[in-house]
């Protein structure tokens, strides 16, 4: 929770570094600065989806009593991941317009992110319609685990198999980072900032959930009295 508050320091630093410290990229010019928001947003969404999958595994297979409410936490993480994904798509579309002349090109990476988005929208639809079902936690957790298995395929495999408008991945087949040192530093600070933002959001949502639970317990206790 306290770690998340570091976002108040890191995010302004990342913004200032993106515009003032990092140099423009060859061929892309100043428009390349979107990379310091687009890539960390995509990273944040992958992180959030991975965490939701891990929490779901713990919910299904945990046996020491600590698994209570983990399905809710997984739900929160998936929600933040979905928000980050939508923002990554918006920032990517703006960049695509500037670089390729069109907001949407059905590039393999763009197509796979839309499929991923649809998969997670389906999860929220599934979660929403099962509000009265006692097995909601288990069913939604199974869904999130299955999705977690599929996510790497869409994010890391498909864009590398088919020809893409996107540049080589930052860490490519040569295992070499084709990036200027200042750019690398800025991207790192930005990635840390968005990770902290995710941690902060997640912490707040979980704390709100804890408050709700406590209020419910107090109401129950009063009824019993």
């Amino acid at each position: 929770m306290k770690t998340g508050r570091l976002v108040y320091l890191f995010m302004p630093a990342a913004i200032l570094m993106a515009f003032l410290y990092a140099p423009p990229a060859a061929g892309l010019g100043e428009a390349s600065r979107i990379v310091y928001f687009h890539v960390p947003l995509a990273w944040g969404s992958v992180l959030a989806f991975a965490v939701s999958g891990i929490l779901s595994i713990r919910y299904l297979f945990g046996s020491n009593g600590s698994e209570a409410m983990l399905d809710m936490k997984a739900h929160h993480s998936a929600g933040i991941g979905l928000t980050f994904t939508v923002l990554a798509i918006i920032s990517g579309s703006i960049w695509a317009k500037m670089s390729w002349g069109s907001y949407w090109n059905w590039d393999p990476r763009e197509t796979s992110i839309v499929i991923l988005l649809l998969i997670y929208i389906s999860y929220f639809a599934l979660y929403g319609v099962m509000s009265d079902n006692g097995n909601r936690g288990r069913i939604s957790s199974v869904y999130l685990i299955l999705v977690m298995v599929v996510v790497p395929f869409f994010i890391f495999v498909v864009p590398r198999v088919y020809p893409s408008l996107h540049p080589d991945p930052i860490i490519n087949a040569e295992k070499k980072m084709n990036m200027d040192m200042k750019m690398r530093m800025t991207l790192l600070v930005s990635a840390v900032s968005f990770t902290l933002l995710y941690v902060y959001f997640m912490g707040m949502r979980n704390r709100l959930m804890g408050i709700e639970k406590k209020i419910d317990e107090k109401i129950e206790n009063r009824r019993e009295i």
Partner: protein
Amino acid sequence: MNKLSMAMAFCLLLAGSIVPRGNPSPDGNIAAIAPQYSLVYAGEKDIPIAGDSSKKDDVDDVKNGVDGGMENGGNGGMENGGDGVLYRVMAIVLVIWMGLALYLFRMDRKIVKLEKDLNER
């Protein structure tokens, strides 16, 4: 939430069917028409510093409606941050962040207060 999800899915499908595919390639190989670039510093000679308005062609392209100002190999008028565009964009991003940060900070304080109240009762 499920209604919202369905609405989002519908909007996505609609957008997918409406948005035209950019840069069509005759043989369908999109890699062939991809611009050649990498995230490597262009060098001082190629990219003038922000605020330098000596390179106006891209800005003019945008004003004249030429496809994103890309026709001259530029970047939609942002090549040199002409007329301080770069600083304006940075200021807007900072203002958005400050608004979000203020909202988050206030919400955090309210949660802390709620937690304290609940623990005291």
